[in-house]
């Protein structure tokens, strides 16, 4: 194993440890989702000295990068405005990711969903 992979594994374990202390799910449980899935991301939000869990529910547009650099983008439409949030997968702030609905898509990056209405997206994902 080369040294960089070794460090990536080390960071993975370290992050897992931090996650464990924060009461978050393990990384191996997190990573089981793919573009096109509708997910609920539970994010730890620190406000002053208080902490709470904020949920972000939407459709996964893409996953990119590998190892500690991996990020994913979740899109939702809030009050008629499209909102996209990019999360680092390894971030200790992510408490859990739950897949609510899985759909079959033929692309790794679902940028084409941006221009579509919610109804059309629903139809599209069901059709596939």
């Amino acid at each position: 194993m080369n040294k960089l992979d070794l460090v990536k594994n080390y960071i993975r374990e370290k992050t897992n440890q931090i996650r464990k202390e924060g009461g978050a799910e393990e990384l191996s449980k997190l990573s089981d989702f793919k573009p096109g899935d509708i997910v609920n991301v539970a994010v730890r939000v620190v406000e002053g000295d208080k902490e709470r869990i904020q949920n972000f529910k939407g459709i996964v547009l893409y996953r990119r990068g590998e190892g500690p650099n991996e990020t994913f983008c979740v899109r939702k439409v809030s009050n008629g405005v499209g909102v996209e949030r990019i999360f680092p997968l390894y971030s200790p702030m992510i408490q859990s990711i739950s897949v609510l609905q899985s759909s079959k898509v033929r692309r790794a990056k679902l940028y084409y969903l941006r221009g579509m209405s919610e109804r059309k997206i629903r139809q599209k994902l069901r059709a596939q």
Partner: protein
Amino acid sequence: MGAALLGKKVGMTSYFTDKGQQIPVTVIEAGPCPVVKVNTIESDGYEAVQIGFGVRSPKRVNKPEMGHFKKAGVQPTMFLKEFRVLDTSLKPGDVLKVGDLFKKGDKIKISGKSKGRGFQGVVKRHHFGGVGMTTHGQSDRVRAPGSIGSSSFPSRVFKGMRMAGRMGGKRTTIRNLEVVDVIPEENLLLVKGSVPGHINGLLEIVKL
């Protein structure tokens, strides 16, 4: 006494703190560095410690160099460097390791040979703004250096005028880098931010 080591760049990745911050880190394979020679005022006129780094096949070492390594009783190393910050009470044959010298939170400086960029213009090499606009009939002044001096007096271009030329491939030092983590068993050092040079390039790491 200060601490210094030789190392090589392994690559870069991300690191997460317990507060959830993502930090860009450079992974450096630092040491183990055997002490090859200790310079003293009596013998050399100045105090320094010479350390080696890297594995070198004995076939690739010429006889005078081999004698130098044999005297210290160490295996031939790829690189040799002297450091004046190191403790001169060290003995030839002692081995310096990351785990003993550096710890999390230390401030260090790292020197290395920057990546060679070839012949570059002034915009890239000296951060000039360029001269012209792209409109009003101009088409070729966007990345130009502009004036390089006045006319009849002094009738020459001053020395050191910043112009186009070879860029990079020079010794570069970055100070105040922070040690994010140390993995002693693998001789690895994780440093916040980037360091000079390409992957596998030789680095000098000195504690501030």
